[in-house]
């Protein structure tokens, strides 16, 4: 990897294109944090690569002054797999939304996570289709009323963290668009991870689903309604940091802060992470944010590339002539 002479600033990653999200959209905060955080990673600008599918969030690459590929609906993970495998030196990022990622792109995201391609995925989850003007999405809650579900949706939603865990993700985290500090920390953690990093961001759509996360993410209640899980830290939460969680058998229990377990996202078994991921189904429980899972796993792009370099080392670079003049040959005079 080449070395840049001057470190990047946030401005270096701002493209000259006008940002066209609605005023007040949560995407602005994510863009700001991403530009600021990525500038400090020590990666040359030319090695940043943003890939996206279709949707409001998928316009993201146009606003980053680095390499960018705005592809087709749901398929960003497949493009990113090709790009990263072709050039593992690149720092490859995917911007995706809940429809792009889990409806049309459901097949691709699970296979990206399964393969553990060294790509960072930022899921902008607003529980609604924005660009197509307000249909319910695969993360919308049951009963959600939208243009396409005037009397409420009947399908059960995906829990993004559970899907990612189920697909064998090596890194799973959650953050929110209204907590700049937490989002910065989470993006930095994902950047440092080797392998696919899946980051769900609660993102507010001011037009079609305003306040979807207010019951947990609104600033005045956030401390009591969420628990920020960090490696090696006790599982405590609350405005007064007096509440805790502990894991007993196959359940998560509320307890006092001093009885709380220490959170370990690196556990070989994903069982605890699955239990934690389900907490947002229980109104009595805090909503989990922070680092849900981080484990080492073989990295697809490096392994695929290694097979090629090893084959060349072992056999020497192939010669076309040997390939063509092979098998049973005969001469015609």
């Amino acid at each position, binding site marked *: 990897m080449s070395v840049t002479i001057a470190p990047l600033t946030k401005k270096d990653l701002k493209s000259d294109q006008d940002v066209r999200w609605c005023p007040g959209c949560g995407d602005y905060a994510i863009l700001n944090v991403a530009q600021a955080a990525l500038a400090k990673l020590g990666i040359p600008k030319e090695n940043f690569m943003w890939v996206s599918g279709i949707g409001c969030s998928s316009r993201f690459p*146009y606003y980053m002054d680095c390499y960018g590929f705005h592809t087709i609906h749901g398929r960003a993970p497949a493009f990113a797999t*090709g790009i990263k495998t072709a050039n593992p030196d690149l720092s490859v990022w995917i911007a995706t939304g809940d429809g792009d990622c889990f409806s049309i792109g459901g097949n691709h995201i699970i296979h990206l996570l399964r393969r553990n391609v060294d790509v960072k995925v930022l899921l902008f989850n607003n529980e609604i289709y924005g660009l197509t003007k307000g249909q319910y999405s695969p993360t919308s809650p049951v009963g959600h009323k939208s243009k396409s579900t005037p009397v409420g949706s009947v399908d059960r939603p995906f829990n993004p963290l559970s899907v990612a865990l189920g697909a064998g993700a090596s890194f799973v985290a959650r953050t929110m668009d209204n907590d700049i500090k937490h989002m910065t920390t989470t993006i930095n953690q994902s950047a440092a991870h080797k392998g696919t990093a899946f980051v769900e961001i609660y993102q507010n759509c001011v037009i079609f689903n305003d306040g979807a996360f207010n019951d947990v993410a609104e600033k005045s209640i956030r401390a009591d309604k969420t628990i920020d899980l960090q490696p090696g830290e006790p599982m405590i939460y609350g405005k007064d940091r007096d509440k805790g969680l502990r894991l007993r058998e196959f359940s998560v229990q509320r307890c006092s802060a001093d009885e709380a377990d220490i959170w370990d996202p690196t556990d070989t078994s994903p069982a605890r992470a699955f239990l934690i991921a389900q907490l947002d189904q229980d109104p009595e429980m805090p909503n989990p944010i922070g680092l849900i899972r981080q484990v080492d796993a073989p990295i697809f792009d490096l392994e695929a590339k290694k097979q090629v370099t090893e084959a060349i080392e072992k056999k020497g670079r192939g010669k076309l002539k040997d390939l063509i003049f092979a098998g049973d040959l005969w001469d015609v005079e």
Partner: protein
Amino acid sequence: MTQEIGTELPLQQQESVVIRFAGDSGDGMQITGNQFTGTSAVLGNDLATLPDFPAEIRAPAGTRPGVSGFQIHFSASDIHTPGDAPDVLVAMNPAALAVNIGDLKQGGIVVANTGNFKATDLKKAKVESNPLEDHSLDGYRLIKIDINERVKMALADSPLSSKDVQRCKNFYTLGLMYWLYSRPLETTLNWLEEKFKNKPDLVKANQMALKAGYNAGDIHEMFQGQYEVPACDTMPAGKYRNIMGNPALSLGLVAGAELAKLDILLGAYPITPASDILHQLANYKHFGVITMQMEDEIAAICAAIGGSYAGYLGVTATSGPGMALKGEAMGLAVSVELPLVIVDIQRAGPSTGMPTKVEQTDLLQSIFGRNGEAPIPVLAASTPADCFDMAIEACRIAVEYMTPVILLSDNYLSNGSEPWKLPNLEDLKPIDQKFRTDPENFEPYSRDERGARPWAKPGTPGLEHRVGGLEKEHLTGNISYDADNHQLMTDLRQAKLMAVRETIPTPEVVGPEKADILVLGWGSTLGPITGAVERLQKAGKSVARMHLRHVWPLPKGLDEIFSHYKLILVPENNLGQMARVLKSEYQSQNFLSYSKVQGKPFTTTDILAKITEILES
């Protein structure tokens, strides 16, 4: 010719022979056919082969759906097809006989393995009475031989189980055919040594079975004489190997990438009959090839496009149903103007259709099957060996014009084989490719003299830019909804297609410059058309032929050529897709579509009969 089969001479010369080996799909008929092919190739015959196997891996033994066949046409003179009707049918069981007897030439030889014609075998094959005894084969020369028993006796001393001994039947059969057509055993004996080098018992048993079969020809006087098909003396001088379409195509892709100084990134999803390309390229890692078996057809093409964006030569290989799924991503490749080779090994449709059968029904899908105006050059290989040349041509157009290219092949080419005169590698023209590195005045949608935009791969300092499926502003590549810009970009993409046309040679006419009929083919119909037209020309008929390898855009100069023929006959394994294109492109000409959609290629006889019918009407 072959009509003299059966006359009683100790060694009789024949010009050309067609043998069909048919048995249960577990009987090893494909191996038998391939061995006979290899031996005949080394002997210097011209040849063409075609396997015919079921889509099911192992349909119930002894049933008609489980029949697997392999046809070989070998000749002392130039031939073009695997042959219309076999001279010899080797039937390992009643199902194989029932399925194939209708194709056999009148008076042809049937070699039947009587060991598999018991009542239960007849029942599995749904045959009412034993055809070996009910005189239904009276019009043929029937050779009855209990191959099961003969193999058992020949391998009495073998340590193999009786089940494994029976699996040597195909080599006994092969030995018998080697004797009948005076072929040497060496090629197959050596192949067995290599194939089972860690299983000496298997080598020995199969070699003994082969020799026993050969000797049986001598000892048992079943055939009343041997035949000989001398080497073909009209093949151009050079070094040859026998090759099937998919291997030739895979080699062509590797060659094309090397000529462009690129490495291949193949995104693929398993599909009959294209999977062989994935298998083969997966073995070429030491050529820098990355193969990725993706989660579906869409992911396969998307990964390939991603590879191209990052500086590889992206390739994806599929068949009709996969093409349908890839359509949207092809449009993106047109919009972002990146090199991409899309290989479509066509099979019979619609939907799943008949995955192992032949059709040319993806032509219109390839030319027009995308949303928006999304022009893509389309090529079609015409013979198994031509798949090599056309794969290189696809790479050339893709890289030099920064465009996706579709290369059509089909089941007839992918599984068929022919002798391939190996190219002189020094004669292959390098493909002009360079990555943009200079940031000075860089504009991602500027164009060179060919109309191609610069290829700037991520990791290059100073060339950071964004691409995508939204309409691009000319030069800058920024998103644009401007009306005039959209017209301009649409025109520029079309102009690039027409620039490709400038580099396509006008195909030559074989035969008279003016005539009653021009037979115009594309893709795998070349063999039967050539065979039929040659015969008619020898008979003094007013017929010429021409073959298209670039099917979109069509080559220049065709209108002028077409005007010299009263009728242009277009045989196709579809309902006249190319004829439809031609009628719209050359409206003053007289085209006649000749359609065959049976999952089978045209025979020479089909085309011969059609032309004759027209000439006589």
